């Protein structure tokens, strides 16, 4: 009985130690986050930025973290970076009111270019992610089952014409669903967009510093990268324009690249 008791006590102690260690590890990001907030409030924005970035480097995701990093970047005069982090905050929490308000402020201050949402975009933006894919998939499978039932099942033979009609209609709906998802991924999902972070960026007619300008891109401007060629990106620009932009002047909204880059 005694050796059993010793083993039990050892096991319990080990479990408690493991739990405490894990808890300490879990609390560490919170502590860094609070320390960064303290630095911000004391006006030490550079330190606050480094601490927030260290959390991002670890792959931590939180709308508050992105939002605070964006606000810090603004205090440091990096307005393009500030807009980028506000967009990332809204990716993590689409209805985040603080981020919306700051975006409105930056929009007024910087006058950056943005893609206009049409009525369809506004509706799709509110729909859950992957709506088109789900509609397409469910319609396609249901349509295929109807068609297979019509052709391969003796039981459904009397309703063959109805099943074929329903199957064809559902197959057509599935095409609409997949097209909707394609449109959503391309035009609405802000993960496909990049933000201009450099202060004096411009879209050029060719991937060369000597090329003529298409349009100036104020920091915070939104572009959609179509092709990357060396140090240049060929991108869609709001206002039905296209041009070449230096890759170093852009940052993808998502995923968050390593901070050093």
């Amino acid at each position, binding site marked *: 009985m005694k050796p059993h008791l010793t083993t039990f006590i050892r096991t319990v102690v080990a479990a408690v130690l493991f739990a405490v260690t894990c808890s300490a590890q879990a609390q560490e*990001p*919170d502590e860094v*986050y*609070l320390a960064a*907030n303290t630095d*911000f*409030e004391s006006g030490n924005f550079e330190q606050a930025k480094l601490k927030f970035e260290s959390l991002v480097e670890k792959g*931590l*995701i*939180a*709308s*508050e*973290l992105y*939002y*605070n990093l964006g*606000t*810090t970047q*603004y*205090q440091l005069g990096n307005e393009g970076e*500030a807009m980028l982090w506000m967009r990332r905050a809204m*990716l*993590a929490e689409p209805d985040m009111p*603080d981020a919306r*308000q*700051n975006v*409105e*402020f*930056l929009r*007024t*201050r910087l006058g950056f270019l943005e893609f206009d949402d049409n009525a369809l975009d506004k509706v799709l933006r509110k729909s859950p*992610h*992957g709506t088109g*894919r*789900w509609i397409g*998939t*469910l319609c396609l*499978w*249901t349509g*295929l*089952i109807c068609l*297979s*039932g019509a*052709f*391969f*099942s*003796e039981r459904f033979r009397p309703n063959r014409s109805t099943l074929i009609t329903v199957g064809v209609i559902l197959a057509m709906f599935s095409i609409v669903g997949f097209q909707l998802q394609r449109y959503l*991924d391309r035009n609405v*999902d802000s*993960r496909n967009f990049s933000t201009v972070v450099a202060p004096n960026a411009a879209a050029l007619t060719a991937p060369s510093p000597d090329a003529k300008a298409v349009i100036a891109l104020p920091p915070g401007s939104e572009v959609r990268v179509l092709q990357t060629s060396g140090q240049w990106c060929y991108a869609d620009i709001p206002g039905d324009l296209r041009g070449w932009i230096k890759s170093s002047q852009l940052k993808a909204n*998502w995923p968050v690249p390593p901070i050093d880059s």
Partner: protein
Amino acid sequence: MPRRIVIFLLTLFFALPLTAQDNSGAQTIFSSELLNADNKIPIGEYGTLVFRFAGGDVDMPAQIPAEGLEISHSQKHSNFSDVNGVSTFVTTHFYRVRGTELGQYRIPSVSVPFKGSEVSTQPIVVAIHERDDSDAANASRSEFGKLELDKTEFYVNEIVPFTMTGYVRGRNSINDVVRAQLEHESFIFKGFRNVRTNASEIGNTLFSHASLPSTFFALKPGEHRLGPGMMAVRVLESGGGRGLSAFFARTSLKELATNTVTTTVKPLPEGAPASFTGGVGVFLINAKPSTTELNVGDPISMDFEVTGVGNLRTMSAPVFSSTDENWKTFDPAKTLTDEEDSDGIEPGTVRFSQVIIPEFDATEIPSFELTYFNPINAEYVTLKTDPIPITVSDDGSTYEVLEEPLNVSSNNSESSQAADRPAPAFEDMLHIRLTSPRWMAEISPGKPGTLYLVVQVAFSIAFCTIVGFGLFRWIKRHQLRINHPGAPTTFKQSLKRIPKAGAPRKEFYHAVSTSLSLWQKENTDAPPPVQDLIDKITRRCETFLYSGESTSDAPIDPDEAGELHSILRRLQTQ
């Protein structure tokens, strides 16, 4: 012989006109003529000028230039006519002639080329005269227009009502008025907004008429001849049918010219006060400030409402009577809609708004003055608003907005003006969030998740099951067909192979038995009564085929075969 005579006569008949035409060079005559009596055309009305060319056709111009006249081509007509005893091809060109000023004018000679040379007409002198507008003269016309002014002597800027009326002989003859036009460089016309149609007798003749009331005012003093006005009306050609016939009646467009009216426009008397702003008529003024309690430098919006009969279009805002430089004034704004404009008979309303700013602690808003000219008494009248007491402070205290808005009657004094919603300023970023972050595993995934894959698998299984069973059944049948070539594999096929009446009885029952067994395989959920019937027939077939009781291979009789055929057909349709 008689046939040759007929051919000769026919040839002669057709050849004669051609000969006349060929020889027409010798008969060439080009003439012009005005079809109006005594070469006189009433002012504004159309006369008809014709050019006749005997001996062929010539190209005539679309317009003939003539000083004081409008001459335009309207139509062409050709026929054979007897000219100096010779049948000649004659072309007649019709032109419309109109003059809009009284006087004598000359239609010039017209020359046109013909076969290498030029042929010309003689000039014609036309007199454009004032139309006889008496009832007796009008009654003799089939249609005409009439311009009537309320008065022919009036002041500059005075609103004068007038009516342009189109008359067409017959009841309900006018279908609609397509357009109306009355122009003069010294007058401003309001335009024709409504049409009144009616019928009346002129000299014992019934006329339909369409009246277009409107107003004008003169810009320049002096004597002016107004008109002729032009009206285009659509006239019912059937003479004005009723009911269904009126619905299908054909219409034609007629242009009606009105008489002219000589007007005397008097200038406004000299010595107009400084506050005269151009209004001519009889008016009243009402003024209201947007606030009476304010700080120094705060704006006051003065709203004026001028109501009355007269010309509101030429009127400008009331004049601020104070010359104190501590009152800062801005340009006034004017609001006048067509609906609220005066037509010279009914009163209208014009609104002015002017911002004034006291730059000192004023105690009242000084009066505003508005002077207008009254054409009835031929005098200038000055209206003055009462000074409005105000409280102006310079301590930054808030001011009160007047509760009663402009244009609200006194019994509605409880309603209040809606406040403007403040707009966000966006002057700086919001502060950072101080709450603990809610760490997330990932943001909404861009790629499909586990649930999506599970659903895919479930649907795939269902699909493959149905297709698999179907394929299995098909393979089974296929093998059966290979092993027993010629044997039916479905109930439908087996029905086709059942022999007809007269076939050997054994063969017939064997085929029926096969059919029934296939039907049972295909319809496992058949209702019990049907199942019982199938069992009975199956037993009957087996009894015959396998009991050995019947050895006869005699042909099956038609009644028996018919009964079984009937049952099997009903099974097929079930």
